[in-house]
């Protein structure tokens, strides 16, 4: 292991210029991924999770999108704001990516085999024949039956689950060290979801590839991830290991998400509690905490000043962006209290 993390993102900020004004979609996001780690980024629609990873890949439409600050380092070298030619040195090669809707994410007029082979031809300079052979192996690895026949079929001849497998096969073509999965199971039904997640986990543990998994589904997180970032209104509000996030939630938003999640424990005959209200308008983000307006525990300072990330010196990876974690803040029922003074960020 080198001294660098596989991917290190710091203070990433992204804006979109629209007719209605400038949307501050991502407002200073920091996170890192180690080789072989599965990191989940969780949050509700519009919280900036997809924009974050698409900015790193350089595939947000620019304009209207604009990366206004920060850096993203892959194995120590900057990959943010590269031109297409430089970015193509890592896109598809070092970092593979799969998307939410496999039905529309593949070219409808090219065979599956040709689309997978294309990546290999471009990055490894293979001939069509060699590339197609590897493509066939990849389809077998992603558990697509009758791979030879499937190679010559078009996307409309595949089911949704099979298409997502084909997408995964395509993204794995050049054995990337990182796979970004942007809501890979959202468009699929539940049984297929489980199969795809199992497949991702299996490939990850076999090849030692790191995965960034974007999702709004906490059940998916619990099933697959080791570490979690919870995003809200363009910022990371809590980060930590899966256990820390689930059992020692230190941010009221994480707590709210958990209460809104159905459980299958039969004795607990509890109601699902939705989080009232809606996320703040990112045209003019509030000066205080983004969650304050919906937070049942909000204090006066929460509306005035955005909290920094507080973290626990004993569990340095667990951090929460909440004033309730500040020294001297009132104790709150259900909320894990970080034991800390050290603060960073913001």
């Amino acid at each position, binding site marked *: 292991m080198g001294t660098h993390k596989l991917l290190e993102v710091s203070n990433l900020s992204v804006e979109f210029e629209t007719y209605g004004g400038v949307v501050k979609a991502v407002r200073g996001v920091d996170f890192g991924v180690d080789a072989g780690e599965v990191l989940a980024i969780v949050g509700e629609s519009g919280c900036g999770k997809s924009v974050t990873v698409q900015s790193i890949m350089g595939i947000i439409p620019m304009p209207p999108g604009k990366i206004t600050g920060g850096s993203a380092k892959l194995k120590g070298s900057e990959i943010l704001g590269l031109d297409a030619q430089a970015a*193509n040195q890592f*896109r598809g090669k070092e970092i593979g990516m799969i*998307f939410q809707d496999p039905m*529309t994410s*593949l*070219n409808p007029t*090219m065979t599956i085999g040709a689309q997978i082979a294309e990546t290999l031809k*471009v990055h490894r300079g293979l001939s069509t024949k060699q590339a197609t052979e590897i493509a066939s192996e990849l389809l077998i690895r992603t558990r697509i039956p009758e791979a030879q026949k499937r190679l010559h079929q078009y996307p*409309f001849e595949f089911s949704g689950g099979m298409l997502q497998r084909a997408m995964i096969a395509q993204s794995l073509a050049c054995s990337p060290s990182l796979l970004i999965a942007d809501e890979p199971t959202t468009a699929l039904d539940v049984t297929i979801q489980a199969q795809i997640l199992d497949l991702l986990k299996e490939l990850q543990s076999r090849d030692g590839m790191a995965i960034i998994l974007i999702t709004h589904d906490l059940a998916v997180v619990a099933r697959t991830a080791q570490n979690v970032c919870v995003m809200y209104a363009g910022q990371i509000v809590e980060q930590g290991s899966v256990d820390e996030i689930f059992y020692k939630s230190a941010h009221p938003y994480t707590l709210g998400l958990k209460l809104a999640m159905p459980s299958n424990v039969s004795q607990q005959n509890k109601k699902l509690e939705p989080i009232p209200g809606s996320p703040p308008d990112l045209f003019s983000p509030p000066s205080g905490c983004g969650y304050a307006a919906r937070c049942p525990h909000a204090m006066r300072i929460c509306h005035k000043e955005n909290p920094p990330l507080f973290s626990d010196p004993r569990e340095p990876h667990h951090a929460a962006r909440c004033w309730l974690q500040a020294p001297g803040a009132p104790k709150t029922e259900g909320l894990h209290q970080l034991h800390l003074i050290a603060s960073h960020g913001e």
Partner: protein
Amino acid sequence: MLKYTFGRILSGLVTIWFIATATFLAMHAVPGDPLMNEKATTPEIRENLARKYGLDKPIAEQYVIYLGNMVQGDFGISFTQQNRKVNDIIQDHFPVSAALGILAITFAALGGILWGALTALYRNQLPDIIIMFLVILGISVPSFVFAALGQLLLVNINQWFNISFLPVAGWGTFSHMIVPSLVLGLGTMALLTRLMRSSMLEIVNEDFIRTARAKGLSPSRIFFQHQLRNAILPVVTVLGPQIAAITTGGFVVELVFAIPGLGRYFVQAVQQLDYTVIMGTTVFYGAFLVFMVILVDIIYGFIDPRVRLK
């Protein structure tokens, strides 16, 4: 694919039959008959002629006789041009119109795709604005204006350089075809440019283009491999009807450039109520268009696998 092609041909035949029937009825609904213009018309001669051509029979019977001959490929003899078979007229003059039309549609399709792709690439920049201005002009100005302007331009160019750069009118060599087919294809080219542009701009925002970028493909590869082929689909779809527009538009252009195409006979026949020529040319043109549309459908099947296999 075979079943698909067969089905298209069958429905094409029904269309042709419908065209023949409708033309037959419309033609007979017009007052008068082909013998009205004859100079020496005593009632006896008229009657004799009517009997000879079968015009004295009831319309239903004429219709059956006509269809019978048509199925055997015989369109009969012209009423106004002595001893000229309609089949011969078509044989002599259609190749001229067809050559002009095919060249025009080729210009239109290639130009439309090229300009459309270009305007999409330079969206809202100078090349886009200039081309789109010309496109509006091409769509709104009728072809005979362009035909006259084209001729005028040619005359001037030939005068300035004192050489025959390109012939101003007439028919015979390939150089005779260039300007008329350009003029003929201009409106269609403009239309296809617009279609191609909007289709290209729509494709840019498709998910699979995002995937292609995430795969690390070069912009030129994404453009040719992923964008262009998908964007061409709507253009191919309208190509069939546009062939109809070009062949009918051809009558005017043929007239201006003094090209001996079929169009002149078609128009003349209607004026003179030359029954057999009207029927012959209309059914023939109808069949030609139906055939072209089927051809386009089959080509479409090759470009878009979803059509082919369903």
